[in-house]
């Protein structure tokens, strides 16, 4: 372990304040403390700000997509003149393709994964297992700094003069590999692949750190089965990354080679793309487009669980804390997380039911996909069990966590349609799919992220966020989210395809424009509503009410540390005596019994 020895709290150094005083002697420079920091809390907060910034960018792209679908090819107000001076201030088909490609890419690789694993993984893991820092603090710093080349590449890709990457976030070849197939893209797709590879490096460094830290650096008494569920979830998500990421990295390097050195991993023979045969200019051929789909989804399906498993863990913790009741069925919750992760590796083919993959294989993937619905159902029942007989405090984090459960129910149930192969023939690639995964990733993960920010903000910055503003933010967000994404089910029922810039020329879709306008207006409201959150966040950062160590009266270890914790986290020796959810325990008078509290 290369944890800096100065930060270790040795037994016997127990007097509160020793570590902090010790550190005030060699104060780090601003650059080392906030920019090139090896402190897991600072790195977590760096990920938080980066992720939230890209959330705004990705959100703006979604707004542009919604504009096009509601009022296709019309003059875009305010910014149309700047973005499209040559096309009557309206979106072009090429730009639309780039928009949804980049919206997906940013939201998945630059927002949800960095926020869940990067921000909360970094911030919470050492604090909640009672460790002074990560096992490899420098590697951890490198994990964040690997984001910078990724960001540089994605910006380069976006600023490409001919237009950005235009093959969707799934980058299916040959559209993504043959230059004449998407003439505008030129080098944009290559930069896009490089960005993905660097993001992979960042996630990999994080994952190695999380697994090692959780296995090796738990405080005395913190057995695996006493860990809070959010730690279990982050542990399992890190394992998913560890096993799946190498495949994506290999695949994206193969695609880079196809694009730059004209190898032919994904290019079949005798292609004629835009009147040009790639073999005429010396490109190799004989490859298989489906190979990419297998490799890509072998990573990206587990990645889907990386985007929701930590959110499940966070919601579990927040629900128990604010319901003032032990989490219902701790062990089933851990086992169901583990089985989601395990099964997550054998369901990737359900993205390929209509792809031309052997239909017999499709049937196997159908069975595994159906089975994976079971652990998700078990989780929902246990969350409801946690609420039964509780003393619920409807604080802002709790409301958002309840919102998570409600929307996870919707998104989880609509998944059963997709798992049924014959039904999937009709709904594959329609807006039912879009509705489903937005219910999971926006309604689910984003609401869990909101809940976590409200819940752990006092620990991060030593100040509370404003509860009234928080509640107003939740109510509006919940209403508009459902207006936007529930109605997308109805679009999908009508068979509306995703990634279609102008659907109303088809007789099948002609009647859908009013519905799309309703969705777009709701989406604009949803976006605007987030201003409340941004204001609340920054206002509270400087002027929020100061708090003590344990504002929510939680049981887990992060609440033992000062708010915000200093370098090395804890100012006294931590020892763990019980599980993380001893709320309403009859052993003590108050309604919570912290993990580190010794009873005589």
């Amino acid at each position: 372990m290369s944890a800096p020895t100065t930060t270790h709290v040795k037994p016997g150094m127990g007097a509160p304040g020793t570590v902090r005083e010790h550190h005030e002697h060699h104060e780090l420079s601003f650059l080392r403390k906030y920019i090139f920091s090896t402190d897991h809390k600072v790195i977590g907060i760096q990920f938080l700000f980066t992720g939230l910034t890209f959330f705004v960018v990705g959100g703006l792209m979604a707004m542009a997509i919604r504009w096009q679908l509601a009022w296709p090819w019309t003059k875009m107000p305010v910014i149309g003149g700047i973005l499209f001076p040559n096309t009557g201030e309206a979106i072009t088909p090429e730009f639309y393709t780039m928009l949804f490609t980049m919206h997906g890419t940013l939201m998945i690789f630059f927002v949800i994964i960095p926020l869940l694993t990067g921000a909360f993984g970094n911030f919470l893991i050492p604090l909640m297992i009672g460790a002074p820092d990560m096992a490899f603090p420098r590697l951890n710093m490198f994990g964040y700094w690997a984001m910078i080349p990724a960001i540089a590449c994605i910006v380069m890709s976006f600023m490409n003069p001919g237009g950005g990457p235009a093959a969707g976030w799934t980058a299916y070849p040959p559209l993504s590999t043959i230059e004449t197939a998407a003439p505008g893209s030129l080098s944009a797709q290559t930069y896009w692949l490089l960005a993905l590879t660097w993001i992979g490096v960042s996630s990999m460094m994080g994952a190695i750190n999380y697994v090692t830290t959780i296995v090796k650096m738990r405080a005395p008494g913190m057995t695996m089965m006493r860990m809070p569920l959010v730690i279990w979830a982050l542990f399992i998500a890190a394992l998913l990354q560890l096993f799946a990421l190498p495949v994506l990295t290999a695949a994206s390097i193969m695609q880079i080679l196809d694009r730059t050195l004209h190898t032919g991993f994904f290019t079949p023979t005798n292609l004629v793309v835009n009147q040009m045969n790639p073999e005429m200019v010396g490109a190799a051929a004989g490859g298989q487009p489906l190979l990419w789909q297998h490799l890509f989804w072998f990573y990206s399906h587990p990645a889907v669980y990386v985007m929701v498993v930590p959110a499940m863990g966070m919601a579990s913790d927040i629900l128990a804390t604010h319901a003032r009741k032990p989490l219902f069925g701790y062990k089933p919750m851990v086992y169901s997380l583990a089985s989601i992760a395990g099964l997550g590796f054998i369901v990737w083919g359900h993205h390929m039911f209509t792809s031309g993959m052997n239909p017999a294989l499709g049937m196997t993937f159908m069975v595994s996909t159906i089975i994976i619905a079971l652990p998700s159902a078990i989780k929902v029942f246990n969350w409801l069990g946690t609420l039964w007989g509780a003393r619920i405090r409807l604080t802002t984090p709790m409301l958002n966590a309840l919102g998570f459960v409600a929307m996870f129910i919707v998104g989880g149930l609509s998944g059963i349609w997709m798992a049924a192969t014959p039904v999937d023939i009709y709904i594959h690639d329609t807006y039912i799919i879009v509705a489903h995964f937005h219910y999971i990733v926006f309604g689910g993960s984003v609401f869990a992220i909101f809940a976590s920010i409200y819940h752990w903000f006092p620990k991060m910055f030593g100040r509370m966020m404003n509860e009234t503003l928080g509640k107003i933010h939740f109510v509006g967000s919940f209403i508009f989210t459902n207006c936007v994404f529930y109605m997308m089910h109805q679009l999908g029922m009508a068979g509306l395809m995703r990634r279609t810039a102008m659907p109303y020329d088809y007789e099948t879709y002609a009647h859908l424009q009013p519905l799309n306008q309703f969705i777009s207006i709701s989406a604009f409201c949803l976006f605007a509503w987030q201003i409340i959150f941004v204001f609340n966040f920054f206002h509270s950062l400087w002027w929020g009410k100061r708090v003590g160590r344990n504002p929510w009266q939680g049981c887990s270890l992060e609440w033992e540390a000062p708010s915000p914790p200093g370098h090395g986290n804890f100012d006294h020796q931590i020892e763990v005596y019980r599980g993380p959810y001893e709320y309403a325990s009859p052993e003590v008078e108050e309604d919570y019994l912290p993990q580190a509290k010794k009873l005589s």
Partner: protein
Amino acid sequence: MRLIATLLFAALLVFGIWSFVDSETFLLGPMPDGYSWWWPEYTSTFGGDIDFLFTFISWLILVFFVGTMGALIMFVFKYSKKREGKAVFSHGNHKLEMIWTGIPAALLLIIAFMQMTTWADIKFAGATAGKQLFAEVFASQFDWRFRYPGIDGRFGTADDIESVYEFVVPVDEDIVFNLRSHDVLHSFFVPVLRLKQDAVPGMTIPVWFNSMEEGTFDLICAELCGWGHYKMAGRITVVSRAEFDQWIVDKTAEKYSNGQENQ
């Protein structure tokens, strides 16, 4: 806040049930003739099986949706009232876990097994093996082309007929065709036929359907194929056998009169 939160979740429940039971006028008022907020009417032979499965799963979903959301709403309303005292001190219940693992598991297995034959009938190679090839379908950026064997019934001969955009087929017959692409991925999607199959460069994929109704239906590309993906439209015209034979004769005559015969 207690009331607002309860109403908010209750609104989602009502909204959800409403979308299931009233697909004619849901939210936006009456739909134009022939449209609803549910799937469009099917016209293919296997459409009935697919729609039955979809409807069956939908009702199952509705039951679980009402059950879980109902419990959530009730618990939020009931257990956020009292401030004093402690919650029930319970870490779980083994019997309950068994019940809510066992029942969904059984239902999910039923869903898994009841769809297998439908899937096999539509997609397995056995469904098209040995049947006579009706046409070859080529997808390319950004149009659909259909090649018929012509009057002699054989492909690759001088009287082959090619049609762009329009795919004319006879009603009530099994139509087996080979789907191909030689540039990028496309997908052959006809909503009313409940038929979707990707066209993959380098692969020849046999596809079949049997339309039980005459009419003209949209053929839509369902896999991103480039900037013009949105306008990669086609049309399926289903006619009686007699009309179809006449169409073949007309097309053949048209072809020779234009002097477009193959070398």
